[in-house]
């Protein structure tokens, strides 16, 4: 397996082999039919994503999702290959005291609004994002409403 070659239609097995071989920090958690689940530390995110976009031909970034696990937060990326429908799920843990992660908007323009949304709802700062402003909530909003610390009226 040549890690530097360009694959237009990488299979699930190929991805599961290439990704950890190229980046030792990437751990493939499990694979399913047309699905690869992987985790990686946030330092490697941008280069891994660049590699996935350029060499594995994952042209489409479906979502950027923020999750609040109370002790830490996480961002989850769903990436799609348009040639064979394989999806990669990348989960990145973010410590609760330093909520910074690289933005993937320079790679996939489609992640732009997802990152803005995740920032305004969770407070996760995406470095190098072109325009990190509030999108759904008003400009004057002071909270990050989707954090677990922000209680709904009926929840307690």
């Amino acid at each position, binding site marked *: 397996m040549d890690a530097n070659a360009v694959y237009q239609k990488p299979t699930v097995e190929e991805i599961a082999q290439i990704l950890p071989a190229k980046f030792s920090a990437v751990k493939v958690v499990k694979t399913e039919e047309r699905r690869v689940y992987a985790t990686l530390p946030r330092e490697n995110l941008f280069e891994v994503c660049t590699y996935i976009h350029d060499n594995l031909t994952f042209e489409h970034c479906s979502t950027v999702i923020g999750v609040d696990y109370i002790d830490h937060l996480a961002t989850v990326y769903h990436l799609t290959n348009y040639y064979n429908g394989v999806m990669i799920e990348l989960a990145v843990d973010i410590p609760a005291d330093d909520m910074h992660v690289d933005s993937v908007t320079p790679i996939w323009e*489609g992640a732009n609004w997802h990152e803005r949304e995740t920032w305004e709802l969770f407070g996760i700062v995406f470095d190098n994002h072109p325009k990190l402003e509030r999108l759904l909530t008003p400009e004057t909003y002071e909270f990050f409403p989707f954090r677990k610390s922000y209680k709904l009226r009926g929840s307690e």
Partner: protein
Amino acid sequence: MTDSIVPIKEIEENMEKMDTDKMWVIMGPQHPFSHGLWTLKVQLDGEIVTDAEPIVGYLHRGWEKETENREYPKIIPMADRLCYAASMTYTHLYCMTVEKALGIDIPEKAKYIRIVADEVCRIQSHLMWLAAVGTDLGNLTVFLWCMREREYFLDLNVKLCGARMTTNYPRIGGVRNDTTDLFDRDILRTVDRFEKALWDIIYLIDDSSIFVSRMKGISILTREQVANVGLTGPAMRGCGVDFDIRRDDPYDNYDKVDFEVPVLTAGDSYSRYMIRVEEMFQSCDIIRQAVQKVKALGKNAPYRIKTPSKVPAGTTFTRLEDPRGESLMYLVSDGTDRPWRLKVRSPIFVNVSSAKLQSVGTRIADVPAVLAQIDMCLGETDR
């Protein structure tokens, strides 16, 4: 030209000195072109759009946060409200996600009924889109003809589950009820009738050079641009991306029905229009096949299974081909009967973010016609 009173050169110099400026026009939130509450700020140089910025969020109601407060079955009616034009697809997607998290397989009959319901919703949604295209291009006849056709499909919804728009029909583990008597007869009649009526509308639009010239060659997008900005659905397939989740990443029983995915490479507004029209015909085909399959399974085949109320801890995601594009749900469950986090990826949310790419370079008169091709639905955009 030499005997002109003012020398041409002088006019040109004056033109350069003239203090011209670009103008920001704020279209929305109450504007006939914004089918819902959103704003498009466009910067105009004369009539040509030089910059555009969409503003959404007027309808943000914290849908995802609210689901964290509810038991799993109680989220189904909420999922209906995400998109009023095709409510069944989001309910379907939600049920699929929870079923996958539970690790259960639902009965065959339920899968086919879901396909039928999905495609009926797709046709409804596309008809609503076609109606909007008609008004955006200044013609009311298309609007009313499409709305008339849409009524027949809403009647099918009534026949299937008793409600017109917010159907609350799919359930975790199947569907709420079996198809009623004569449902297959009604749906086949409706589909046959609809195919003829759709040709009327197509003749009205495609045979008119004004309609065609308003769409042809406008707002041309390349395959790379479309893939990069995350435009999905029929708009993407009109720009040359040959990808349909129903075919390339099949869910439920879409791999067992036979249909074609229309793809055009022209990338202009007109090809995006053609894709959706063709998709309506394909949906009719799918409905015919799925109804046959439902009928073949017999009257007493199970359509719903019992499911546990608690979902084991873990993360799951599924995706589905919405009428408007790729919709995805990501579920983080913690072993209780309520989700820890439920995220919806709505296709329009991303499609709208590409409004600048689509509208820059066109004229202001084209802005509604171009942005009609992404089929706005604010319920799912703002969530």
